[in-house]
């Protein structure tokens, strides 16, 4: 792989819609709210964008985005003319696929105690980070995220009987609150 770092005009970039043979379209979705929040974040912290440019591969006289498809929409929202990019040359389709997935993969998790104690000047809500508090999971207060930015996600758990009944019984009527409380304790 050979890489080039440079700013490219937005008009030269294309989202990954499956136009590269053998590479499926970008498997991510986002809402208008995601675009708006990211657009603001990019403006607020331009150094991070320079450090984490949009990752593209050449395709004809255009460039297809492997990493940063949402950022592309956010830049359009900001009416940016050109954006920081890394052009990766000579990648196999298999490597491209690994990069598409891994660039959005995420290992590790937030240490919520540290976040709430020492990083409290950050606007977490604007970044889509919710710091869970025990009282939020008591069941009395399930609306832990009023004004959620995007549509809900359904977690589907599949069990054979009799485990399905056991899990249902334990989760009770307020499945969400019980699950959240259990996970907060289960560290």
């Amino acid at each position, binding site marked *: 792989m050979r890489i080039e770092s440079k700013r490219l005009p937005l008009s030269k970039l294309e989202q990954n819609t499956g136009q590269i043979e053998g590479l499926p379209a970008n498997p991510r979705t986002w809402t208008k709210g995601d675009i708006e929040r990211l657009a603001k974040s990019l403006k607020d912290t331009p150094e991070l964008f320079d450090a984490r440019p949009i990752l593209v591969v050449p395709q004809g006289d255009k460039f297809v985005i492997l990493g940063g498809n949402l950022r592309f929409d956010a830049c359009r929202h900001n009416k940016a003319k050109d954006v920081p990019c890394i052009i990766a040359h000579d990648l196999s389709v298999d490597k491209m696929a690994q990069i598409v997935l891994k660039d959005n993969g995420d290992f590790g998790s937030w240490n919520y105690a540290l976040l709430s104690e020492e990083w409290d000047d950050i606007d977490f809500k604007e970044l889509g980070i919710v710091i869970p508090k025990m009282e939020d999971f008591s069941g009395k207060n399930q609306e832990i995220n009023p004004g959620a930015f995007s549509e809900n996600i359904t*977690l589907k758990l599949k069990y054979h009987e009799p485990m399905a009944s056991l899990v249902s019984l334990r989760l009770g009527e307020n499945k969400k609150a019980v699950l*959240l409380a*259990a996970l907060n304790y289960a560290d």
Partner: protein
Amino acid sequence: MQIKKINIALIEPNNGQIPGLPKNPRSWSVKEMDKLKASIQETPELAEVRPPIVIQNGTGFVVIGGNMRYFALKENGAAEVTCIILPADLPLSRLKEIAIKDNSQFGAWDYDALANEWGDYPLADYGIPVYDMPEVSAPGDGNAKPVDDRVVIEIELTPDEFHFVADKLRQLAPTPEEAVIKALGL
């Protein structure tokens, strides 16, 4: 902003050694670290284009974004690490923003697309929660026959709650079903 290969002995994780900058607020399990190490070995190209973000501190460097990656590269035996060096005069508030934002993520996985088009890849090993994907996460044989005698329990979550739940479940067990059993003490 500079991109440079740095001797790994000169790099330190963010332990809170820079006055005013709290230590890295992320944690991970040994299992996750092993997966990241293997992932970097499989796709070293990604580590080259998404390297740790560091700032100079005395004669060395402190990792602002990519602390887990730094440990993974070190444990993989790297002698030098490609790093992005932030300008030395960046205000502390900006450093804090970078540390947090480099680990936050907008948007969500398209689970249908993952299941239908990306199923050849070991998604869980790539740090992708495979929770809503029965075809991919179903235990057992590879005869991709949908298992339809299982009972489905649905829990509706906001995206933020989902991320929290996904994070926690992933640390507990290889599949969400097992993780929930564990969490509920069954």
